């Protein structure tokens, strides 16, 4: 079975296209448009990697990343921040996330960064 990736973004267009692209690569993608669902979901089956938007309406991806990195169950899951924010680098470092994909991105960059972090971690969380 393909590795599980959570894509968290409040823009439905981005969620749709990222889901298609990554599913074509054989991943199982769960699209999440509401950050609040993450805290509920982490008590269940965990993903192998999370793509997390930084600026979302009413939610701060940076805070979510910090929360996940401080949680025993989720701290080893690679988190890639995805953002058009001009302070994205700073926020990624502060959040303790593992990588950054700047919007707008090329789909090859998306695929490469996901594969790289999955390979690097060989996540044992499942």
């Amino acid at each position, binding site marked *: 079975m393909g590795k599980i990736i959570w894509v968290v973004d409040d*823009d439905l*267009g*981005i969620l*749709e*296209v*990222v889901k*298609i*692209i990554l599913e074509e690569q054989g991943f199982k993608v769960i699209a999440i448009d509401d950050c609040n669902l993450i805290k509920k979901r982490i008590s269940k089956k965990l993903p192998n990697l999370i793509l997390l938007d930084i*600026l979302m309406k009413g939610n701060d991806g940076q805070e979510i990343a910090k929360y996940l990195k401080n949680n025993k169950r989720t701290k080893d899951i690679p988190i890639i921040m995805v953002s*058009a*924010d*001009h*302070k994205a*680098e*700073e926020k990624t*470092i502060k959040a303790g996330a593992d990588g950054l994909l700047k*919007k*707008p*991105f*090329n*789909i*090859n960059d*998306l695929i490469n960064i996901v594969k790289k972090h999955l390979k690097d971690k060989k996540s044992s969380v499942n």
Partner: protein
Amino acid sequence: MNSFLNTQKVQGLGLKHKNKEILLNQLEKKYNYLIEIEKQKDEFLSIVSHELKTPVTTIKAFTQLLQKRFEHKGDYETANYLAKMDAHTDKLVDLVQNLLDVSRIQAGKFKFYEDVFDFDKLIKETIENLQIIAGKHKIVKKGSVKTLVLADKYRIEQVLTNLITNAIKYSPNASKVIIHISSDEDKIEVGIQDFGIGIPKKEQEKIFGRFYQVRKNRKTGFSGLGLGLYISNQIIKRHKGKFWLSSKYKQGSTFYFTLPITLHSRLVKNSFNIE
């Protein structure tokens, strides 16, 4: 009589002093108002840029997805149209990015993120990306530096892209653009040469100014906001390099920049603000 005159003088001075105070007060209010407007403008530009990038991300991703699918089916003509669509979407992104950069420069918040990278590789990748939209212009590289540099790779790529796209844009009747690369012990030197309209001597000092092209484009017929050179100049200056041009009207221009190699000796930092 004297005492009357003195009283009048004192009263006159008092009045002048009061007027001065009122004027200063008005000036201060006006100054604060302008500062506030400037701040609001910067914030507005940042929000607009961010909001524009979100739908552009979706457009680009779907365009590239379609391109891949057509390539997979062997329909290379359609795939090529989509590649062009994607490249032109990048132009739109650059425009937005330039507006955002100018607002950051004005606000003194133009940040750099240094990293060590292979300069020749960056040149090669930039040429490959730009050749797609270069049309009849062949982008030719002459020389190499075979060295690593410590600089903001994204920003240096931005300078290269700006200079190469300008060279293509302002030489509509030419068929090539040459990128000259060389180095000595202290620095890397890059020259982007076009064979286009050139820049008259009296205009050469002005072209690094903000919005210069906007004021000129009605006369020249070339579109653009005129922000690219201003931003490129700022980027190179902040990297402690030099930026200049050599141009002959109706014969072409070469834009040069240098990057100090002494940057190597500096420690790589994840993030810093060069001010």
